[in-house]
C-alpha cells in the first residue's frame, strides 16, 4: 500500500468496520510517535459510532497540548487486506487545523507487523514471527 507524503508526514487510507458498516477513512497519519490509534469523529459517525454514556473517556496529554477522546472497540481496522479484528480505537474531534482522518499508532502498527518503507513510501505487513 502506497503512503501519501504531505507536510513531511506519511498518510494512508484505512478501512473501518463497525456493526456491519464498512467505511474508508482517508488521510490517516502513520505515526510511530503515537502510542494509540485515533479516528476522527466525523468519519466514525459515518460508521454510526457516536459517543455513548457508557464509553470509556480518555485524555491524551502531549507536549503541544491535550485532547479528550472516547474508546470504542471496532470489528475491524485494516490497511488494504491487512488488519486487526476487535480492535480498540480512540475517537476524537482531531481539530488540528488540517485534514486528518485519524492516526495509526504503535498499538496497531506493532500488532499488525507493519513494515514502513520510507524509501519507496509504502507500508506492508510481514507475516508474524514464529
Amino acid at each position, binding site marked *: 500500500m502506497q503512503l501519501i507524503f504531505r507536510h513531511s508526514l506519511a498518510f494512508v487510507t484505512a478501512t473501518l468496520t463497525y456493526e456491519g458498516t464498512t467505511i474508508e477513512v482517508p488521510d490517516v*497519519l502513520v505515526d510511530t510517535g*503515537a502510542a494509540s490509534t485515533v479516528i476522527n*469523529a466525523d468519519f466514525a459517525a459515518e460508521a454510526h459510532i*457516536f459517543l455513548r454514556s457508557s*464509553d470509556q473517556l480518555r485524555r491524551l496529554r502531549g*507536549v503541544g497540548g491535550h485532547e*479528550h477522546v472516547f474508546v470504542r472497540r471496532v470489528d475491524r481496522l485494516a490497511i488494504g487486506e491487512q488488519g486487526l479484528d476487535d480492535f480498540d480505537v480512540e475517537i476524537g*474531534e482531531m481539530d*488540528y*487545523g488540517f485534514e486528518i482522518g485519524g492516526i495509526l499508532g504503535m498499538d496497531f502498527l506493532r500488532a499488525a507487523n507493519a513494515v514502513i518503507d520510507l524509501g519507496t513510501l509504502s507500508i506492508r505487513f510481514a507475516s508474524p514471527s514464529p
Partner: protein
Amino acid sequence: MRWQDVRAAHPDQWLVIEALEAHSENDHRILDRIAVIDVCPDGRTTMKRYGELRRMHPQREFCFVHTSMVELNIEERLWLGIRGVRAADLSS
C-alpha cells in the same frame, strides 16, 4: 463544583464541563473543581461543542461527559507526536 454536585444539578444529561482545578494521578485525570459550561442533547453534539470551545479557548481544559457516571473516570495517556500541532506549524 465537585462531580457529585454536577451530577445532582444535572441528572442524566450530556454536558461540556471545564476543569477549573485538576491534577493527574495514576494515569487518570482527576477534576477537583468543575464548572458546567453547556448542556447538550446527545453525545455527538456534546463532542462538537467540546471541539468548538477548545478551538476558541485552547488554553482551557474542557471535557465531554454524561452524568450517569457515578465517579468521573477519565484515563490519561501520554502522547508524543502531533498532538496540538497546527497547520501553520506544518506549512512553515
